């Protein structure tokens, strides 16, 4: 029998990371801790290593702002980090909104809304359109457009600096994901996720499927918030190369047959059955 740890190890680790980061950022503001100061838009580790949201920097560039050296270094640090550990690892390991949308998705499955609403009415490519649109609007309005409506920043800033009506943004996302669209925010709309998806196309750590072990139980596809990335399940031994994979590890931990695991990205050709 699988232990609780075994079936939820990545989920537990992810929640631990997400909450620890929130506590560290909160402590940075409230109690003057120096581990992490600032918020997800821009921060410093031990008042030394700068980190900046590369998507925000991109919008600022489109808006025509002069980018400072600090900002460029910070954005480069974050970009390199996610190039290594998987672009959308941000989404499932860091982003506080992930906890809200996961909760909505959990409830959605529990009360069987999925059965009420069979077909998903929207395309997952929407995020790329919104990503492009955000840059166009940033350019036209001379302002970082998504940063003014971003519920991610709103929630994170809210938790660190005081929430105001930020709870309303949280509730809207929760209700939207629960009643309107499954994985609506994170899987369809969020342009930051779209940005990290583009980055993730080149990232190093990826989930690897070994077809020989697969029993086609499809638990992985059920649990995956971006199930389209698992198109190779039971067909080919491949790395999940789509940038839309968030490296959340849910598929790895629900698999009873050791057919999925984290590994370094492998080029598709080598893993193909014929190439072995």
């Amino acid at each position, binding site marked *: 029998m699988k232990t609780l740890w075994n079936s939820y190890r990545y989920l537990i680790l992810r929640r631990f990371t997400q909450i620890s980061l929130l506590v560290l950022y909160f402590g*940075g*503001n409230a109690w003057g801790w120096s581990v992490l100061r*600032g918020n997800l838009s821009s921060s410093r580790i031990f008042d030394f290593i700068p980190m900046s949201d590369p998507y*925000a920097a991109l919008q*600022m560039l489109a808006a025509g*702002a002069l980018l*400072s050296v600090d900002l460029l270094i910070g954005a480069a640090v974050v970009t390199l980090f996610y190039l290594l550990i998987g672009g959308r690892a941000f989404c499932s390991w860091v982003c506080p909104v992930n906890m809200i949308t996961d909760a909505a998705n959990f409830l959605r499955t529990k009360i069987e809304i999925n059965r009420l609403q069979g077909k998903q009415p929207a395309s997952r490519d929407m995020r790329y*359109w919104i990503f492009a649109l955000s840059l166009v609007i940033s350019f036209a309005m001379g*302002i970082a457009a998504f940063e003014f409506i971003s519920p991610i920043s709103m929630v994170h800033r809210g938790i660190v600096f005081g929430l*105001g009506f930020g709870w309303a943004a949280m509730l809207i996302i929760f209700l939207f994901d629960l009643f309107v669209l499954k994985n609506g925010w994170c899987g369809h709309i969020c342009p930051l996720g779209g940005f990290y998806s583009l980055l993730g196309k080149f990232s190093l750590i990826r989930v690897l499927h070994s077809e020989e072990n697969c029993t086609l139980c499809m638990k992985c596809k059920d649990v995956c918030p971006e199930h389209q990335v698992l198109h190779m399940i039971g067909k080919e031994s491949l790395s999940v190369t789509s940038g839309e994979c968030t490296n959340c590890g849910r598929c790895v931990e629900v698999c009873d047959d050791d057919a999925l695991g984290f590994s370094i990205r492998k080029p598709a050709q080598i893993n193909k059955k014929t190439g072995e």
Partner: protein
Amino acid sequence: MSENKHNMAKKREPLSDRRKFILNMARGVGLATMGGFIWSAYVDEVRASSLTLRPPGALKESDFLKTCIKCGLCVEACPYDTLLLAKPGDNKPIGTPYFVPREIPCYMCTDIPCVPVCPTGALNEASVTTNEVLDINAADMGVAVIDANSCIAFWGIQCDACYRACPLLGEAITIEYSKNERTGKHAYMKPVVQSDVCTGCGMCEKACVTEKASIFVLPREVAQGRAGNHYIKGWEKEDEKRLENATSETTTTELSKDSALDSLNDGLEGY
């Protein structure tokens, strides 16, 4: 009847790939346009609030909004909890730092901790540096304005709370004496803000004794007018330099060739 059937058969025919492609493109462009305009309208609306007081060294508001990444490092650096980050519901450009002097003014730290931490340069160190040393007196967060109707010193009651609270004592706020004609034996001691010296720290607003502050800080852009380059103080050498910025554009009014009488009598046909 048969025509009706024909129509129904036509309806069930699947859309051609070409038609589907065109329809999908049209839908994409349409939705993007719609979303884009709603988004732009919202962004335009939220940044329109012009009564926001920024930390020292902040760039011009439009550049500031462009450059501020909303990280809150300045807020964390402020030892007096003066600075706040705009929350949803504050009716300020969201996530940007601001302060409310009547609550907590800027105490003008000489080391200006809020400025060097800014990662993007939205708080510009150069603008609060004089001779390569940080100089908070060079800050320009706004300018204090006095409502002479509610300021009790203007009534003739002695009060110099703002004058005493000013960190640039005797420079940014001066006292102007004049005779109180009502009593015939007292003096008015009216505070006057020297707007070219005032940094907009708001310590006067905090100190003001009236129920709602009678001296308060406004962003300089809001509080001050502008004479323009057409008016020069000819008696001041410095001011004459502004002439260099003046445009040499001349306007000419086209003279009408009609007779003056016609012009006077025009439009009287109805009478």
